[in-house]
């Protein structure tokens, strides 16, 4: 079933929003794009905080807005959870009363997510009696997420929930979001301009540019599209590889991951044996050689072929390479491309340093629900 079916147009001063996409089923959809691309406007329209000039919005088969028939469900009846960029906890209520604000207003028959589940999932038990002003930024965001969940929404919208957080806080919350994604089968639409988050969390991505949809697809599909490179200014390009943990070397603390075309060795314990993981190999971490180097520290060396060369106006070029059934991206200087004669079909060796694959780039695979909470079957 189509979870979200959206087709809207809206003029905001000089800015014209013209966005249309549909999202199938559960999982995380990332709205990705530069600031000012219209990401927040899209989820604001889904929530009813922004009224489109034309078009329609349907969530889980329910029409929330349709300009042709004059349908416009009021915000408080949309059942759309919204996690704001700045949290927006109610300052005059305790954390407990903040969490229960939406829950108390939800009809009994809709109550699937309980306080106990949310408290456990987000680890907010010690905070319940506190006031929002006594919370850290990361704690505030966790409470804001829990508050939205407890209102029993049919879809959860998140507007850059990490934008105001520093890197350690982000690392603190990302695992909670992964659990949300996997344990509550609740569709999530997530606004972000940080590719690391998108790749880690998203099942599908909608790329927005200047108020329009520039591309849609899985992170893997979009990561391979070199033509999107100029568009995604902040896009740190790289290949996304789904792999399985096959061994762990406890002496050297290295995990072995098998993927279609070879094995990758990465530092630390990437997961339990047999676990599926997603590895993001950044283009700048892939070096190229014409001959297989011997006596070298690099652990991961693969034979491959050049599939596409994309030279931008600066000093760099980006290459798409095929290693058996898997594609990698490599970012090298244009001078190297010329010197090594890297044209379409050229045979090369890919060198990937293990240390470039850390916990920032290795994560569990989205959408592998493993029991636990269920929502809206």
């Amino acid at each position, binding site marked *: 079933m189509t979870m979200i079916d959206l087709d809207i147009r809206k003029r905001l001063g000089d800015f014209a929003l013209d966005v249309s996409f549909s999202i199938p089923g559960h999982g995380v959809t990332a709205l990705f794009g530069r600031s000012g691309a219209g990401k927040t406007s899209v989820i604001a329209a889904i929530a009813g905080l922004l009224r489109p000039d034309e078009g329609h919005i349907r969530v889980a088969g329910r029409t929330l807005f349709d300009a042709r028939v004059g349908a416009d469900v009021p*915000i*408080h009846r949309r059942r759309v959870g919204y996690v704001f960029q700045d949290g*927006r906890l109610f300052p005059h209520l305790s954390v407990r009363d903040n969490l229960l604000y939406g829950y108390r*207003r939800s009809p009994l028959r809709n109550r699937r997510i309980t306080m106990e589940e949310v408290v456990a999932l987000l680890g907010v038990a010690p905070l319940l009696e506190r006031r929002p*002003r006594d919370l850290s930024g990361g704690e505030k965001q966790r409470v804001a997420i829990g508050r939205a969940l407890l209102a029993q929404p049919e879809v959860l919208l998140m507007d850059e929930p990490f934008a105001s957080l520093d890197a350690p806080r982000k690392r603190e919350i990302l695992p909670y979001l992964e659990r949300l994604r996997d344990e509550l089968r609740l569709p999530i639409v997530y606004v972000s301009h940080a590719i690391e988050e998108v790749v880690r969390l998203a099942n599908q991505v909608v790329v927005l540019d200047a108020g329009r949809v520039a591309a849609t697809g899985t992170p893997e599909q979009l990561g391979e599209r070199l033509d999107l490179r100029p568009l995604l200014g902040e896009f740190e390009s790289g290949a996304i590889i789904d792999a399985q943990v096959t061994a762990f070397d406890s002496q050297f603390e290295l995990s072995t991951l098998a993927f279609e075309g070879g094995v990758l060795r990465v530092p630390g314990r990437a997961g339990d044996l047999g676990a599926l993981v997603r590895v993001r190999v950044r283009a700048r971490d892939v070096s190229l050689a014409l001959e297989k180097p011997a006596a070298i520290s690099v652990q991961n060396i693969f034979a491959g072929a050049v599939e596409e060369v994309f030279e931008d106006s600066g000093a760099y070029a980006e290459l798409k390479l095929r290693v058996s059934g898997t594609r990698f991206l490599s970012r090298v200087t244009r001078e190297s491309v010329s010197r090594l004669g890297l044209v379409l079909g050229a045979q090369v060796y890919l060198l990937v340093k293990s240390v470039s694959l850390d916990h920032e780039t290795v994560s569990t695979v989205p959408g592998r629900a493993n029991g636990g909470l269920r929502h809206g079957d």
Partner: protein
Amino acid sequence: MLTEFELQALWLSLKVALRSVAFALPFAVVAAYILARKRFPGKVLFDGVIHLPLALPPVLVGYLLLLTFGIRGPLGGWLYDAFGLRLAFTSVGASIATAVMSFPLMVRAIRLSIEAIDLGLERAAATLGASPLDRLITITLPLMLPGVLSGCVVAFAASLGEFGAVITFVSNIPGETQTLPLAIYAAVQNPDGDAAAARLAALSLVLALSGLIISEVIARRARRMLGGAADE
């Protein structure tokens, strides 16, 4: 310590001021909400009318009240005929006069606190399933409480001190309309009244100071309760 006459003036002042705040508060909340949140043609005029008592001479306000609510005035006559209620020359009338005079001060304080509320909080409440009325009661009203409290305190203090409008509308009747400032005025008019005036003035001073201290304590507590920056 205090003479019966002084106690009477003190008690009457407190009564008149408290009742005045109670009269003005509901109207002030509505007016402040409209001024802070609504846009409509003629808003400037509405704003002007509300602030008029600040700009008019108090004597004129008292005189207008007398014309309107006096026993022969259009509203006063009707009130007397229909309910036997007389405002001119009564302590209730004194409260009306002080309520009108302090109304703009109360509205200003409440309006500021409404304007300081982040509209995003009400939007967040809406996404959580709260209807507009629900949002008003559970989010907006509690968050404007500090402004309501400080508006009440300012209006109370202004009512204690109001002279011109009161003496014009309800005259200077000991035990009925003679509040502290009016009692001081009467004492000063009396050639032998210097000592009495001094005692009444001291009483006024103590009253005003304790009122201000109490209001500050309440305001601080309210801000802390609302998670504001009271101790930062």
